[in-house]
């Protein structure tokens, strides 16, 4: 993602991130990429699809492909049955919904607190992470949407 590459060189750049929680870990998506946040309802299962595809759903007349982020990140499945949320993003004209646990606040972060992925980060995580932000008391992983999709397109083959 060019965004991230750019502000690595420009220390003063401030990016707004929509923060989400997946399996207890804080993630951030650049606000420019988030179309909407919604509660995924009436998700139609897609047989034979890759495991991380939660299904398809109707969001105000658009068909959205829901991606289960927990599956994608190889996290255990939700078992408490609590309400999940989804972040709507657009990729090459197609609508996707990233199913996450909950949505947090919007953070304005300066790139000075950003660091590249630690070298020992789980490879599957590093694949979709655009870097890490040091926040007070916790770390926020930047979700790189473009890489996330390229990783997913390759994945079905690897899984087969």
């Amino acid at each position: 993602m060019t965004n991230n590459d750019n502000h690595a060189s420009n220390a003063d750049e401030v990016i707004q991130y929509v923060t989400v929680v997946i399996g207890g870990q804080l993630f951030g998506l650049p606000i420019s990429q988030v179309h909407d946040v919604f509660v995924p309802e009436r998700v139609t299962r897609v047989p034979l699809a890759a495991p991380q595809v939660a299904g398809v759903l109707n969001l105000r007349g658009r068909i959205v492909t829901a991606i289960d982020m927990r599956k994608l990140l190889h996290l255990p499945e939700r078992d408490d049955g609590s309400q999940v949320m989804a972040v709507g993003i657009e990729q090459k004209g197609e609508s996707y919904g990233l199913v996450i646990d909950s949505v947090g606040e919007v953070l304005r972060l300066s790139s000075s607190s950003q660091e590249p992925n630690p070298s020992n980060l789980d490879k599957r995580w590093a694949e979709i992470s655009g870097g890490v932000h040091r926040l007070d008391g916790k770390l926020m992983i930047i979700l790189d949407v473009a890489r996330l999709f390229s990783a997913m397109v390759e994945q079905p083959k690897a899984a087969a």
Partner: protein
Amino acid sequence: MDDLLSEFLTETNESLDVVDVELVKFEQEPNNAKILDNVFRLVHTIKGTCGFLGLPRLEALAHAAETLMGKFRDGAPVTQEAVSLILTSIDRIKEILADLETAGGAEPEGSDDDLISELERLSLSAETKAAPGAQAEEPAADTTTGDIVEQSLERPLRPGEVSLDDLERAFREAECEVELPVAATEEELDHEVEAEAAPVAAAPLAETAKVKAKVKEEPAAKEPTEKKASVSSQSIRVAVDTLEDLMTMVSELVLTRNQLLEIVRRHEDSEFKVPLQRLSNVTAELQEGVMKTRMQPIGNAWQKLPRIVRDLSQELEKPIELEMLGADTELDRQVLELIKDPLTHMIRNSADHGLEMPADRRAAGKSEKGTITLSAYHEGGHIIIEVRDDGRGIDVDRVKAKVLERGLASEAELEKMTDQQIHKFIFAAGFSTAANVTSVSGRGVGMDVVRNNVELIGGSIDLRSVPGKGSSFIIKIPLTLAIVSALIVEAGGDRFAIPQLSVVELVRVQDNSEPRIERIKDTPVLRLRNKLLPLVQMSYLLGANPNAVDTETKSDTGFIVVMQVGSETFGVVVDGVFHTEEIVVKPMSTMLRNLTMFSGNTILGDGAVIMIIDPNGVASAMASHASSVVADEERKQQEEAITSALDGQSTVSMLLFRAGSAEPKAVPLSLVTRLEEFDVTKIEQSNGRDLVQYRGSLMPLVYIDPAQTRRSEGTQPMLVFSDAGRSMGLVVDEIVDIVEDRMNIEVGSDRAGVLGSAVIKDKATEIIDLGYFLPQAFEDWFMRKEMDIAALTKKVLLVDDSAFFRNMLTPVLKAAGYDVTACQGAQHAFELLENGDVYQAIVSDIEMPEINGFEFCEALRRDPRFRKMPILALSAVVSPASIERGRQAGFDDYVAKFDRPGLIASLKDLFSGEVGIAA
């Protein structure tokens, strides 16, 4: 690019396509003045427009072509060479136009001298051959124009084409006069030019002048076609995008209407009912109307074919006639675009493979000229396009040979096939029977590409062939792709849409009444009007657990959707059928596009998203299923083995026996050395225990249940366990069976000698703990061999999610002198390690849930504390690939689960420093 130019490009391209067709016709009927007039006019228009727009290169080329055609009009004989040359020129014009379009209006660099001089040479020779009675001025005129630079001076003519009739008359009467002004310098404009021309021929000049005057009155008139006929003023050009947008909007409207209808359906007596009905009708009409705007005659897709056939005819040296029927049949332009290429390919194919050489045709008693017939007509909601040739037909033997060569089917399979089935192989990938690779066909891209393209748009392709009479390919394609009528069905708890076009009928089946589902082996079939219809479970096609499906089918009630794809008819068993609905096919997202079973998705009236079944996907899934049932089963077994291994519950060969009590007991067969039966009289007593003489030594007998009744006569079955020259006999009452099953210990046991209970062959079975019985025979069974004082200090962590193996291996390792801690998963192991427990080695299972052994090992290796620690992999699956995978993950060695000596040896090696992956 300005509007003018884009208008010009569209129009010129259209004109050129017509010219292509007309020229081919003209070649066949050189005396048809009407055709020539038409061609001449079109080329002339192009030339004129080019001049107007300042495109000298195009203009020069068009002019040279026009000149040559002028000669034909004057009676010069039409030669194939000349027509070819003109066609080549037209191709060049097209190329230039294409560049023009991409460059946004600038003419590409380059020279057309080669073509122009050729054209001129022919013009000249045509002239000499032309009737001597032709106007005397003509040669003179042509010599003057025989120069490219001068031709670009055609400007004075430019306004002329606006009123073509006048101009043409002028042309016909005095070509030379019109062209003479060309000799003037470029800068010279209209009046002077005409003035110069005037003395040469006064009368035509008057006309030209008149034309000029007219144009001056209407300088904006740049569209000759619009003025050509009053009809054209009734139609307007609309950008394709506008139509596409309109179509999308209508699609949305249809969806919304469906939603409203759905709501109203739920409310009886709604006041909305009547207006909604009206809305519904209007929507339907609107939909139809917009659809109509997208409709184009299929002839548009055929335009290029006469030219292609002509070129082929020359290249292959076969005279070919192309007949086209039903060119005005209309279909959606989106479909039209997609069908163009497959059609072209099929025509090439027919010309190359289908038609014989003239000599062969003569020998077969046919006319030398081969005929390819292209016809199109409506049938139901489909368009049928047929490409037929009267050639040799498909050579079944050659196809067979090729099939065998490619290994697509075995000889025995071919024997059973009908000719029609064999013909179908030509649609297989990479199949071409052309003996030689020609420039026309036989390049490895063949009918499979055609079939794919046709199937891509929801169509199907079929073929009929009669040896010696010819073959015919029949393409069936839907009228439109945007809105289809679909049947909503339920399978495996989900709803799916099946396009109505492929549904032939619905059959309801019940358990005890006709018709009912019958089975051949496990393949379900249905007797339907004296024919057997192959059946498949929809939920099975969609990847549901086959076992679950089996229990479902056993009830054999449900609906069968009889579908037809190509000439294949089959039944798809679904759980329920709802209704039909007009659906708007929306493409699936990229993530799902690899699923061949679906062609798209849509939003139903009730707002839910539903997947649309692709009939072609179903057909191919069925075919591949049927043809490879065996391979499939093998693969499935493998897959099952892998999945079950991943679950930590791989199937194990178990020996079932009874001892002491009625309930079955089991032990893994791999642990048993032999099954023996001894006459009870052979059992001796010594030192308070039972023994038999076995292979030259005494074998102690152990009873599972001390209360087990000793037999007094007959034979006594027993399981013999041997290790390092020692044997033990485990006395049992009866050996029941050997089964392959998962050993999933569900209930643990506190009783010594029993690991727990598992369900084996649908019965609760006790799994016995050999580790308990072996020391009963020889107290030092485990102790004696590897007793190593040093080993006792070695702490080994055993990680395995299976209780059985933990219980199985712990004593083995302990017996070898290690201090063993067993834990049930990687997570637990991490905890132990984090707690500061120190181990000298880790033995880890590979197939574990959540974190598998590879990942576990990789994670450990990342931690500097464990980088050097010996880690041993233990797996039910031992293959070179998995060993390699283990090496990459960082394992020091890789041992099969049941190879206990191997495990001990490997551990010993690890500690003595001989590290390295075995095998």
